[in-house]
Structure formats: C-alpha cells, structure tokens
C-alpha cells in the first residue's frame, strides 16, 4: 500500500507537482503495481550477484584531447530564458 501523502512526498522528491486527481489515481494504481513487484520476494537471491550491465564490461575513457565544442550561441539557442550569454535560472530561495 502506498498512501496519498507518500505520493505527494515522492512527487516533491522527484520535483513533479501533482494535481489532487493525479494523487488519487496514482494511489490506487501504484499500490497494485507495487504489489505486482513484490513477486520477486518469492525468489531467494541471497548468493546472487547483481547484473548492472549485461556484457559485463567496465567503462572506457577516450584520450583527453581538446576538440571543437558547440558555440555559446548554439548552446543557448534552445534556452527559454537567457541573459548576457547565460542560462537564466529561477531564484534559489
């Protein structure tokens, strides 16, 4: 079971504002989905290693060589709010 207050809290953690209707809908739906996920409790995985990546390789890094990057105007082109060559963010507080 997952309660409406919990959904509201998780919505805040995920930075998604939910309407009252969404909270009610998710309360029902998420509980049944989480119940479904609980089938995994039937399996004993005490001695099983987790698989993060199926082909089991570690990350590789390329040579650290300078390359041409996007220009400032290209980077800012999609920004909804910008000022003096910067992205304009909302105030912190």
């Amino acid at each position, binding site marked *: 079971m*997952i309660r409406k207050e*919990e*959904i509201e809290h*998780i*919505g*805040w*953690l*995920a*930075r*998604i*504002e*939910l*309407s009252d209707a*969404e909270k009610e*809908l*998710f309360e029902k*739906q*998420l509980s*049944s*989905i*989480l119940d*479904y*996920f609980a*089938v*995994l*409790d*039937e*399996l004993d*995985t005490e001695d*099983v*290693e*987790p*698989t*993060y*990546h*199926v*082909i089991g*390789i*570690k*990350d*590789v*890094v*390329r040579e650290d060589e300078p390359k041409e990057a*996007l220009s400032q105007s*290209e*980077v800012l*082109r*999609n*920004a*909804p*709010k910008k000022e003096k060559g910067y*992205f304009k*963010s*909302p*105030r*912190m*507080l």
Partner: protein
Amino acid sequence: MKLDNLTAIDVVEGIKSGNISCEELVCEIYERIERSKLNCFITLNKANALEKAIEVDRRKNEEDYRRKKLLGVPIAIKDSISTRGLQTTCASKILEGYIPPYDAAVIEALKCEGAIIIGKTNMDEFCMGTTTETSFYGPTRNPHDLSRVPGGSSGGSAAAISACETVLALGSDTGGSIRCPASFCGVVGLKPTYGFVSRYGLIAYANSLEQIGPMASNVTDTALLLEVISAKDERDSMEVKIKNNAAMNYCASSLKWDEDANIDIDIDIDKEVKGMKIGVPKEFIEGVSPAVKKSVWNAVHKFEDSGAIVEEISMRGLNLKYALASYYIIAISEASSNLARFDGLRYGLRLGKDENWHTTFSKIRGEGFGEEVKRRIILGTYALSAGYYGKYYLKALKVRTLIKNEFEDAFKKQDMLAMPTMPFVAFELGERIKDPLSLYLADVNTVPINLAGVPSISIPCGFSNGLPIGLQLVGKHFEENEILKAGFVFETLSG
C-alpha cells in the same frame, strides 16, 4: 511510381541505374503522408529532404555517391533520436520546440551513406508505452485497422513503413519498443545486442536496457540498415570497448558489396537451414492467444521441414512474471534518474513567471510530463528511495542475473530461440490504456530479451482476422547475423 513493395535495395539500384528519380520518390512519399489518417509523424523534414533528393539525382554518377549504401533511400526517424536542426520532442510537451544542436551517431552514419530523412516519427512519450497512445501529439493508428493501436513505443516508425510513408525507419527498444510495433503492423524490426549500436544522441530512458535498431519491410533491408548504423563510434563507451576487441566477431550481416558497389547477398538457403538448432521455450508460448500460437508453430515447422532441428525446451528458472517485475523496476529506476534533466532551464518548456527554484521546476515538470511518464518517475523515485533500494532495485538486478543465466543455459544447446513477439494481435485504441498494469503485462515476451541483452528480430509470420502476427527469433550476444540469416531463410521459404 509504385511505392508498394519498394525496398531500400530497389531504391539504391533504381537511382544508380537511372530508373528512379529520388526527387519524384520523395515527393510521392510526402503526398502520401499528407493524405494519411495514421498520424505517423510529429515533425516533417520536407524542404531539407527535397533539397537532398535533388542533390542525389544530380550527383548519383559520382564515384563517392555510387558507393553510398543508402543512396537516396527515404528513412523515418523515431523522435527519441537527436537530429541536428530538426525538432526532437520524444513525443513530450516538455520538449516541444527543442532543436538539437547535434546529430546522434546513427544519424551521422545515415547521412554519410546518403539516406534521406523524411521526418520524426510518433511514439509513446519518452518511449514509455506499448501502444503509442501516451504521445502528447495524439495516437498513431494501425494501418491494418484504423481503430487499433500500432503497438509501441516506436509505433509511428512501424506504421509508416507498413503504409509506405517511408522505406526504412529507425526505432529504439528498451523492452520491446521496436519488436512490438513491428509485430502489430506486419513489418520487420530488430533489437541489436546491448552495445552493438551507438546510443550517442539517443534521449535516454533506461540506459542499461536500450538500443537503437533498424525497421524495414523485409529482412534484407533490415540487415542493410543495421550495417550502416552499427558503424564504430567512440562516444558510446560500451560500444567502443566491444569493437576495439579484435577477437570479437561483430559482422552485422551477410551483405557484401562488389567492386561496382552493387549489393550481393551471400546466403545459401539450404546450407543455412540444415542442422540449424531452434529451441522453442514453452514458457514464451503457452500463454499466448490460440491464433498466435498456431501461426508461430507453423513458422517453426517451416524451418523444420527444410532441415532445421526444432526442440521444445523449458527455461524453467525463467518465470516470466519475475522477468516483468525485474524489467519494470530497473527501467523506472533508471528513468527517474535520467529524466531529472528535463527542467526547462537549458531547453524545453518554461512557464511564464518563475517562483523559487524548486517550485518552478516542480510546476514545469508537472505541466510538461504526461501521465505515464509521471507514473514511472514517481514509481522509480520510490523504488530508489531510502529503505527501498534493496527491496526493489538491487533485488531486480539480482533477478536479472538469474534471467541472463537462463538464456546462457538455453544457448548452450540451441543456436537460436523462436517464440511469438506479442501474446496477441493489435488491440483497440483505448482498450488498455486506462489500466497500466495490464499494459505492462503485454510486454511479457519482449522484456526478458532486453534484460539478457541478446539480439532479437520480429518478422511477420501470418494474420489473424486481417491483423499481423510476429515471429520473434532470439540469438546469442553479437550474433545478429545468425538471426538475420534465419529471417532471410524464413522469408524465402514463405515466398
């Protein structure tokens, strides 16, 4: 010009021999799209595509043009793949108007080989769905029956091929998103081995599961497209590691090009199919609809009649309900982290008046994401939150190990596995969308493949009441070529 049954190989040969005008072909495709009721595309690339087509017609006799593997071939691109200068939305309101400043690696490869990008195809928002109904831009319809879904999430790509609104298409597949719509729309779609095709420029949903893959009307075109998009790319660390490993054989297909750049298919049907060991895991076939079961067995018997060794096997440890739960937990957990970047600061939706930092972003994300995306981010955030990590995410990763082992065991005895792609044919629009869990269950035969990271192809194998059925062939890691050859054999045997 007749668009029906026009293959990519026909187009390349036709343009080179002067029998096909690329400009005419592209014009005809846009006429078809503009008359269409299917809603396959979110954004069209018309002016640019026509310009490129004219250039192909003008320069087709130049040496480097003659060598282009996809010279003048129209291709539709799923809207989860970044295209420089062409709107890319992932079918979400939050990315409406976003114009990527760079091309995905696969797009660079396509342009280099002379393909013509027709437009960006409709999909489930951020690839989250099985029907293409979660798109902000409205659902795509199934060309075989307009009242039905095309499958998803790459529904626009599959429907566009089926309706001849393109010749080729790219999809992306996290848990079946290429194979499901291929099955529902009666086209071919392949999910490569994890790490086979560069993900650079693919908008991430669940990194440890997803791959970009080819979609086409037939197996040979699928092989041709896979050849092109599997070009080496150092910007995907998984991919480069594999391809730097000289011992690893990663030949994409049996296609060869002669000195005059004409294509040659190097497959001896009789030799290929004789002794081919095909396992049919009963766990993947016992729960499907009777029509699908019959059609898939008929397909398997065609291989058997031609000399393949077919065996019904059991992957006992692979209870599909565990695979589904493990898949969804991993996918939503990765999604909740990946989709944190969409906040309207650098691109995408921004609401008029800013409030403080957290409230501004919460409102943008509440407004910009659709219901299914919110549901999965909330679930994923919950699964990763303090106290639940071990119960959900870590547990799912351990179960994934069991599933992977199950496939490895099966492949000790079998060359490939055959099974239905989907448990049923395409259903009605609106039929399942209100019940998310019932939709998740529809992915039961496709998600285990992504968990194991093996390659898999869906090929049309019959109809039920006029609706296509898909046969899924699953191969060993990096044996794309084997399942492509088997698919080619099946197409040939089916006439």
